[in-house]
C-alpha cells in the first residue's frame, strides 16, 4: 500500500465518519420522537430537506437562479435551519399531533411529500430540479485533508453535545414524562399532564435535529437538489438505524447510525465494482436486504443492540 492509497483510504474514513455523524443526529432526533414519546415520523426526509435548503439559501452568495444572496456565515445558516424547522414542526404538530400513531404516520408521509413538491416546484426560491450549488463548506480555507477533517470534528462535536443534552433530558422529569405518554397516554393525562403540549415539544425537538442534519449535509456536499432528499435513503435508513441500534437508547441510536451507515457504504463500494447491469440490480438488492434486516430485528431482537434502559426514578438510584 503506497502513500497515495493510504491517503485515499483516510479520506474515505473521514467521509464515512462525517456522514455517519450526520445520520447519528437524525437518529437521535427520531429517538426523541419515536424512542421516547412513540410518535411515528415517516417524513424525516421532509424536515431534512427544509434544513438543507434554509441553510443553503442563507449562506450562499447571490445567484439569479434561486432565493439568496445573504452570504451569512455557516453557523448562522445552521441555526437558521434549526429555527425554521422548529417553526414548521410546530405548525405540523399543531395540525397532526392529536392523531393516533397510524394517522400520524400517514400524515407525516404526506407532509414530507408536500415539502418535496414545494422545493421542486417553487423554482424562484430553490432553482427547482437543478438545485442550489456553491454552498460554502466551513474550514474551506484550510488545505485539502484538513478542511474535511475539520468538518468531521465539527459534526462529531455537535453529535456529542446533543448526546449529552438529550441524555440529560431523558433522565430529567421531561424524559420520564415522554415515556409515560408513550406507554400510557391516558394515565399521563389523568396525572394532569398536558399530553398534547409535550408531544408537540418532542416532535419539535426531534425535527430540529433532522433540520440540522440537513443543513450540515448541504454544506458538506456543497450542493442541494431534490434528488439529494430522496425519501428512501433518508427516512428509511434512519428508521432502520434506530430500530437496529436500539430504540429509546441514545447510545443505541448513535451506534446504529454509524454501524448501518458503514454497512450501507461498504456494500455500495462492493456493488459498484460489479458489471453495470448487475450493479443497478445489486443496489436494489441492498435495499431488500436492509428491509429484511429490519424485519429480523423487529421479530427476534425487538430491543435492538443496545435496548432501552428503563429507569424508575433517578433519585431512587442510590
Amino acid at each position, binding site marked *: 500500500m503506497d502513500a497515495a492509497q493510504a491517503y485515499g483510504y483516510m479520506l474515505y474514513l473521514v467521509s464515512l465518519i462525517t456522514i455517519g455523524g450526520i445520520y447519528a443526529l437524525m437518529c437521535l432526533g427520531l429517538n426523541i420522537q419515536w424512542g421516547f414519546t*412513540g410518535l*411515528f415520523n*415517516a417524513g424525516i426526509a421532509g424536515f431534512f430537506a427544509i434544513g438543507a435548503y434554509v441553510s443553503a439559501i442563507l449562506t450562499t452568495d447571490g445567484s439569479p437562479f434561486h432565493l439568496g444572496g445573504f452570504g451569512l456565515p455557516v453557523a448562522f445558516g445552521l441555526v437558521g435551519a434549526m429555527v425554521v424547522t422548529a417553526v414548521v414542526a410546530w405548525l405540523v404538530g399543531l*395540525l*397532526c399531533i392529536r*392523531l*393516533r*400513531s*397510524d*394517522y400520524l*404516520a*400517514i*400524515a407525516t*408521509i*404526506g*407532509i414530507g*411529500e*408536500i415539502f418535496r*413538491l414545494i422545493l*421542486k*416546484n417553487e423554482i424562484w426560491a430553490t432553482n427547482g430540479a437543478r438545485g442550489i450549488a456553491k454552498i460554502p463548506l466551513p474550514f474551506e480555507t484550510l488545505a485539502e485533508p484538513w478542511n474535511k477533517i475539520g468538518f468531521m470534528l465539527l459534526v462529531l462535536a455537535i453529535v456529542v453535545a446533543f448526546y449529552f443534552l438529550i441524555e440529560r433530558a431523558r433522565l430529567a422529569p421531561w424524559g420520564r414524562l415522554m415515556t409515560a405518554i408513550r406507554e400510557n397516554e391516558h394515565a399521563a393525562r389523568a396525572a394532569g399532564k398536558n399530553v398534547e403540549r409535550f408531544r408537540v415539544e418532542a416532535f419539535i425537538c426531534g425535527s430540529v435535529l433532522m433540520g440540522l442534519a440537513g443543513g450540515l449535509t448541504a454544506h458538506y456536499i456543497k450542493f442541494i437538489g431534490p434528488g439529494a432528499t430522496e425519501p*428512501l435513503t433518508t427516512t*428509511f435508513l434512519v*428508521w*432502520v438505524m434506530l*430500530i437496529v441500534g436500539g430504540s429509546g437508547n441514545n447510545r443505541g441510536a448513535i451506534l446504529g447510525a454509524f454501524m448501518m451507515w458503514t454497512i450501507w457504504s461498504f456494500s455500495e463500494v462492493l456493488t459498484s465494482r460489479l458489471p453495470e447491469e448487475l450493479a*443497478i*440490480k445489486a443496489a*436494489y*438488492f441492498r*435495499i*431488500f436486504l*436492509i*428491509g*429484511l434486516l*429490519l*424485519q429480523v430485528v*423487529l*421479530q427476534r431482537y*425487538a430491543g435492538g443492540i443496545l435496548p432501552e434502559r428503563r429507569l424508575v426514578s433517578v433519585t431512587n438510584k442510590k
Partner: protein
Amino acid sequence: MEFINFYLLPGIVLGSIYALGAIGVSLVFGILRFANFAHGELMLIGAYITYSLFQFTGLHPLAVLPLAMVLTSFIALGIDHTFYKPFRNSKTTIVIVASFGIALMARSAVQIIWGVDTFSYSSGRIEMPIVLFGGLRIFMKHVWIVSCSIGLMLCIHTILSYTRIGKAMRAMSDSAELARLTGIETEKVVRATWILGASLAAAAGVFLGLDSHLHSMMGFYMLLPMFAAAILGGIGQPYGAMVGGLVVGLAEELSSYPWLGDSPLLPPAYKAGVAFALMVLMLLWRPSGLFRGRVF
C-alpha cells in the same frame, strides 16, 4: 365540454382506481387494526405480474387480470404469514414499522425482477377517443376501467352482504373481541381480508397501468390518496371507501381547473397535495369519516 373531457372524466377514472385501493386499505385497517403502508406495493406487484402474463400470453391485460389477482393474493398471504402474523398480539405501532419495511422490500423486489424502466400495456399504439355529441371525447380504456371497477365493487358488495365470510369480516371490523367470542375464526377472516384487499389492489394497479403506464414508484404515489379515501369514507367502511376514492380522485383533477380567472386554481404539480389536505381536514373535523367508521 373541455371541463368534462379534461377534468371530470379523468377524475372519475382516477376516483374509481383510488376507490378499489381504498377498500383494501379500509378493510385491513378495520380488521387487522393497522395502517398497511405496503398496500400500494400490492398494486405495484399486481400490475407487474399482469404485465408479465400479458407479455407471455399475448392476451389483453384485462383477460389475464383474474390470474394476477390470484397470484397477488398468494403473495399477500405469504407476506402476512411471514411478517405480520408474529405481531398479531403486540402493539400496532410495531406492525406499522414492519409494513413500512415491507413496502421497501416489495418495491425493491419489483425493481430487481422487472427493472426500473416504465412499461406500457398498449405497446405503443395511441388510442383515439370516440367523439360523442359533437365534443364529448371518451376513451375506450376509460370505459373499461370504470365498468370493471363498478363490477368489482358489486362483487365486494355481494360478498360482504350475503356470504358467511363477508358477514364475519364486517363483524370483526366492528368488534374483534365480540366476533371471536361468537365463534368466528379470526385467522380465517384475516386471510379472507388479505385475499379481497390484494385482489382489488392488483385490479387497481392494472387499471392505473392501462390509464397511463407502469413504473416502480406507482405504488408509493398511490398510498396517500388511498389512505385519504379510506379515512374520508371512514375506516372499516368499504362503501365509505368507494365514495372517498371518488371524492379524492375528483378533487385532485378538479383542483387544477381554472375556477377563478384563467389560471388553474392550483398548479397541477401540487395535485398530490390535494389528497393530503382533504385527509388532514377530515381527521380534524370528523375523524370517523363520512360513513361513521372506527376511530382508533
